[in-house]
Structures are given as structure tokens and as C-alpha cells.
């Protein structure tokens, strides 16, 4: 226990003295703070220029006009109604479908419409944007045109119809359980965060182990203390350094947001307003998952003697983390499905699956407790197995040792 404390302190000091750790932490914190301050600077700048902009807005309006092409052989389109749907768009009326195509191809028109009938039209666009809403808007307009035509043919009052069509409905949403829609955002972010931390720090731990093997300091270390204490010290130091870094980054993000809250047009707080039970679940399962994989990475690092061989060895853990990551993200839309339920009990995947179920799905407290017990028991088992692999592999140099051979060796030695 005493040597574990010594190793933990030494390894932690390595992190806190490491230039890459300190610089990357400070840099990310700085970027977070700068981002949170951006609206404050923009707003100050904006208010100073407000009057000027109002005066200039009318003049600049002409310059912002978007052109679209239209060919309506039968004259179905009510141009006044169409203009109401496409604000700031000027329609160039063409005499043929080819003319519409040409205007679009030459990019003189952003898009083009060829009306084939009152319920049928062709849409032309040169490069379609990711969020192109033109067809949606034009279809809505066409639909309204049909309704207007019906009113006209049947002698109905168009204004009365329009008033009924757009009657405002007041909705008060009251979510009594979990709101998956609003929880989705932070759940998604936190799953990515744990995934990144596991891969990043797991690789750092494995690299540290391989480095000690490669520079042969392991020779003197394993004779000075137990290999289990060495591995546990490294893993726990990695976990503490991670929590510290994430805390610092999160703190700088939230702190600077609080300071600049009034300048933000959108309320980011609604996304960051994570319920306490979700935070606790994230802490329990995130840390458990981190430790589980960190031990795995540590043991895998001991299987190779050269840094260039590490990718081959650590690939096993990497692959496992990736698979869990994709399954969890894909299954977020089916949070109470069988796949998610199974994943939430497996120690490889419960760190993200159970956390996601707590945040977005329906889960009983006993399920959380069982999953947490399985996870932490697995962490202990992984720690012991990892320590044994570490011990058996650290003094074996040369070609990388296969994981299967290392496990077989353990079985024999027992």
C-alpha cells in the first residue's frame, strides 16, 4: 500500500510536470473561455454599430436579393402568394423549362421550378446544400395554391380560410419523466467524452508501460516493488489526471459561461443543466469504465518491448472501445431496446450503455446497482489479471507477446 502511494505520487507528478499535459490542458481551457466570451465582444461591437446598421440595412437589402427561376406554362402560380413564401427572393419568369435549367446551371438563379400541373412540379438546383428547404417551402406553397383555387371555385372566403389555417395553438409541454429529446445532447457529448478519455489516457498508460520496458527501467522497478502496485499506481494516476483535466476544462467552460450568460442569445444552460442522478451515473460508470480499460491498456502495453509495436497490441482494446461506442450511439434512439439492456450489464460497455439508459431510458435502481457491482468487480478482476500479465510480460523482450499466449501462461502458472 505504501509503495502504491509512492508510485501514485510519482506517476501523478509525471503528468503534472509533462509539458504536453499542462500545455494541452491550458490551451483547451483558454479556447473554452474565449468561445464563451465571444458573444460579449460581438454584442459590444454590435451595439456601437447598431444605429449605423439600421440606416444601412435598407440600402444593403437590394444587394442581398436571391434569384430563382420559374416556368409556369399554364399560369397556375399566384406570384403574390409565392412571394409571401419566398421572402427576399426574386423570381425570374422563364419561357421554357430549358431556360430555367440554363439559369440554374449558369448559377444566375439559385434554384429553378418548372410547374407541370397544379400538383406537380420539377425542381432544379446546381449544387444541393445540406439543409435545402426550397422544395419543402415550394410544396407548401403549391398546397396552399390548391386550397386557394378550391376556395375560389367554391365561392369560399379566402381570408376566412387563411385565418383558420394559421390559427395559433398554444402548447404547454409537461415532461413528468425523462425528456429524451433534451437529454440526448448532453448524453451524446458525455459518451463521446468518455470514449475520448479512455482511448487517449489508455494509450498514454500503455505507452508509459512500454517505455519503461523499452528503456529497461522496468528491470529495476519490478525488483523494487510489486508489479501489481506498479500497474495500479499508473492506472489510478491516469484516472486522477483525467478527472483533474476534465474538471478544469469543464470548470473554465461553465465559469466563463456564467460570467457571460446574459450575452448569449441561446440558453446553453438548458443543455448543460444535467440532472444530479445523471451526473452521479456518469461519474460512477465513467470512472469504472475508464479504470477497466486503463488496466487492459496497461497489460497490453507490457506485451510489447518497442513503442512501434504498441499499436498492434493495444488494437484489441481500441477495437473493443470503438465497437461499444458505435453500438451505444446507434442504439441511443432505441434506448430501452434489448441491445442496450444487454450492453448495460457487460463491463466492456456498461460505462456508456447504463449511463445512457439512466439519462434517457427507463431503468430501475436495482438494475443500476447490479450493473455497477458487475463493473467494479470486473475492474478488480481486470486489475489482478492485468497485474499478472504485466508481471509475466515485463521482463520478456523481443517479439511482441500474443495476448492469448500471455493468458495461457497465466493459466499455467496458476
Amino acid at each position: 500500500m505504501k509503495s502504491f502511494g509512492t508510485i501514485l505520487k510519482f506517476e501523478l507528478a509525471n503528468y503534472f510536470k509533462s509539458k504536453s499535459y499542462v500545455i494541452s490542458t491550458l490551451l483547451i481551457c483558454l479556447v473554452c473561455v474565449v468561445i464563451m466570451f465571444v458573444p460579449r465582444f460581438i454584442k459590444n461591437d454590435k451595439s456601437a454599430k447598431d444605429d449605423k446598421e439600421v440606416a444601412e440595412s435598407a440600402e444593403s437589402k437590394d444587394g442581398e436579393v436571391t434569384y430563382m427561376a420559374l416556368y409556369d406554362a399554364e399560369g397556375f402560380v399566384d406570384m403574390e402568394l409565392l412571394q409571401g413564401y419566398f421572402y427576399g427572393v426574386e423570381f425570374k419568369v422563364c419561357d421554357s423549362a430549358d431556360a430555367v435549367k440554363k439559369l440554374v446551371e449558369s448559377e444566375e438563379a439559385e434554384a429553378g421550378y418548372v410547374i407541370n400541373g397544379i400538383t406537380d412540379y420539377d425542381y432544379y438546383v446546381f449544387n444541393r446544400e445540406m439543409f435545402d428547404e426550397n422544395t419543402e417551402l415550394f410544396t407548401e406553397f403549391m398546397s396552399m395554391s390548391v386550397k386557394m383555387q378550391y376556395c375560389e371555385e367554391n365561392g369560399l372566403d379566402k381570408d376566412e380560410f387563411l385565418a383558420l389555417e394559421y390559427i395559433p395553438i398554444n402548447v404547454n409541454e409537461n415532461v413528468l419523466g425523462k425528456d429524451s429529446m433534451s437529454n440526448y445532447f448532453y448524453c451524446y457529448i458525455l459518451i463521446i467524452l468518455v470514449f475520448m478519455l479512455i482511448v487517449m489516457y489508455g494509450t498514454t498508460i500503455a505507452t508509459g508501460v512500454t517505455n519503461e520496458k523499452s528503456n529497461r527501467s522496468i528491470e529495476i522497478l519490478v525488483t523494487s516493488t510489486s508489479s501489481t502496485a506498479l500497474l495500479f499506481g499508473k492506472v489510478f494516476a491516469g484516472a486522477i489526471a483525467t478527472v483533474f483535466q476534465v474538471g478544469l476544462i469543464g470548470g473554465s467552460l461553465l465559469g466563463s459561461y456564467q460570467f457571460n450568460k446574459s450575452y448569449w442569445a441561446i440558453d446553453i444552460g438548458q443543455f448543460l443543466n444535467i440532472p444530479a442522478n445523471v451526473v452521479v451515473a456518469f461519474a460512477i460508470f465513467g470512472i469504472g469504465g475508464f479504470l477497466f480499460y486503463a488496466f487492459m491498456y496497461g497489460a497490453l502495453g507490457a506485451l510489447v518491448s518497442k513503442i512501434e509495436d504498441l499499436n498492434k497490441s493495444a488494437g484489441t482494446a481500441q477495437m473493443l472501445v470503438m465497437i461499444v461506442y458505435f453500438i451505444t450511439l446507434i442504439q441511443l434512439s432505441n434506448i430501452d431496446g434489448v441491445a442496450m439492456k444487454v450492453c448495460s450489464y457487460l463491463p466492456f460497455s456498461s460505462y456508456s450503455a447504463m449511463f445512457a439508459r439512466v439519462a434517457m431510458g427507463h431503468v430501475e435502481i436495482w438494475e443500476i446497482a447490479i450493473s455497477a457491482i458487475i463493473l467494479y468487480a470486473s475492474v478488480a478482476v481486470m486489475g489482478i489479471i492485468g497485474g499478472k500479465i504485466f508481471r509475466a510480460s515485463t521482463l520478456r523482450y523481443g517479439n511482441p507477446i500474443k495476448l492469448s499466449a500471455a493468458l495461457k501462461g497465466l493459466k499455467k502458472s496458476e
Partner: protein
Amino acid sequence: MELKLTNIKKSFEDKEILHGINFSVKSGRALGLLGRNGAGKTTTIRIIMDVFRANEGEVTLDGEKFVPQSSQIGYLPEERGLYPKKTVTEQMVYLAMLRGKNKKDAIESTKKWLKKLDVIEYETRKLDTLSKGNQQKVQLAATLVGEPQIVILDEPFSGLDPVNAQILKDVIRELIAEGRIVIFSSHQMSYVEEFCEDIAIIDHGDVVLSGNLDEIKTEYGKGRRIVCANNLTLEELKSVCESKLSDMVTVHDVSKHYVILNVKDGINQWQLLDAFKENNVDIKTFGAYEPALNDIFVAKVGEEEAEEEKKNEDEEQPKKKGLFGRKK
């Protein structure tokens, strides 16, 4: 204190590496652990340190099963390695604390050994900024910083110049004089002869020779004489011995200065001197032969090698005979 290895066997992946190692070493004495590369020395050392577990046999200290505490053993591995980017003091204090010292004692012990090994001026320097020789001395200081009772040194002199080697020799002598157990593994036989009272030669996973070095030398020199003449070259002298004195001696070897003879049973030195005189050999030097450890090592390991080859040949012979037999 007596550290004793009894019938130690060790296998890796179904291949037996050690076939039953036996030797012992007492406090205040140094044991030279010798063997060719791959003979099993490092595996034996790792079993003593409990890094590897023996499949059979046991290591005892004063008759009790030896479960080494980190403070008990100091190991200088052949493959040197410390943290290249850490300062000398930082890593030595860390290692001392891992071996059970508190921070204050760890710092004191660090300073003591750095001073003794004449590298105190580099205490705040990063290891990779030091010369190879100084890194070597820091490595030895790191071995001793926990004040171990059992010190295992694997090739401690490699890479050291004569001045630094002398500093190291003094430290090793001091360790022995303080009553620590020193196990000294090296291919440099002259150093082993200088420090070790006992030796154990390991070959192919077996101890092929062990015991007190002086006794081994006497035993190996028994029945052998060295001779050189004023009126003959060494080759002429060898020729005389082989042609005219073959009923009394055989030529064992010709060294740089002497012809080394195996004297046949029942022949005493006076009879031999008379025989030389009768054959007109004007004797310059005649005396008992004390073999160098290197000669003993080469003879013993070579002997084993020859036996091994013979054994292999014998195993292959029946197969060949069988084949020919069938053909006939």
C-alpha cells in the same frame, strides 16, 4: 546469513531452462555466477528476486523460505535502465522510497551513494545528459540506495574506464566487508577472481562447477606442471616432451610463456627434472600450475559442450546404423 538455492527448476512454454540449480552464498562473501550467454544466469537471478517463480526447488535464507522484501535486495541488471528524462536525485529518491525508506532517509541515502560513487555533482542533472560511465555509476547508486543486504550485480564493470572501475571495485569491496551477500555475474573473469571467494558456473541450465575458487583452482592445477627452457623454444620443448617424455607426461597446452604438462600418475617432480636433464633441456622455470579462472571456465564449459555434442552424435548413430542396416 546464507542464501541457498536447492534444485531450482524453471520452464518457459514447455521448455526447461533450469534443470536443478544448486549453490549457496554466505554474508561477507561474494559469489561469482558464471556462464555463457543464455546459460540461465539471469533466470536464476530473477528467481532469487522472486520476479520469476521456480517450477521446482526452493530459495532459502538461513534455512527459511526466502520471500524477498524490496528493501532486502539490490539488483544491478545487465540491461541498464533508469528514467532518462528524470533528474538523478528524483529517480533515486523514488527507488529508495519504493524499497521502504521514508522521504528523509531516501534523500540521505541518495546523497551518500552519489558521494561514494563520485557523482554527487550530477544530482540535479537529467540522466540522459550524463556520460555513459556516469550513468553506469548512477545505476549502481540506484541499486544500493535501499541499503540492501543482498546485492546482485550483473556485469557491473561494462562500459567503465579504469578510473571509474577502481571506484566501483572499492565500493564492492566495502559491500563485502560490511557483511552483505554479493552475487557477481560477469564474463570478465579477472574481476570475478578479484572479488569472489566462491563461484558457480552454469551451463545449459545446470551448475557444472561450484565451490570455493581457491579449492577449484588447486584441484584443476593438480598433476600439472609448467616448464620453459633456456636452450629451446616453447614449440621445441613441446616436441621433446611429446617425443621423448611421453611415458611421463602429456602436453596439456602451450601458453605465452610456458608449456603446460599433465604429469602421469606415479611420476614425481624429481624424476621429471632428471628426464629433462637427460634430454639436454636446460630448465629455466619449472613449477606447479595454477590455472586462471578463464581456463577453468573454458575447460569446463568446453567439456560440457563436447559431451553434449557426443551425446547428440550418439543419439543420431543408431538411426544411421539402422538405415544402413536396412540397405544392406
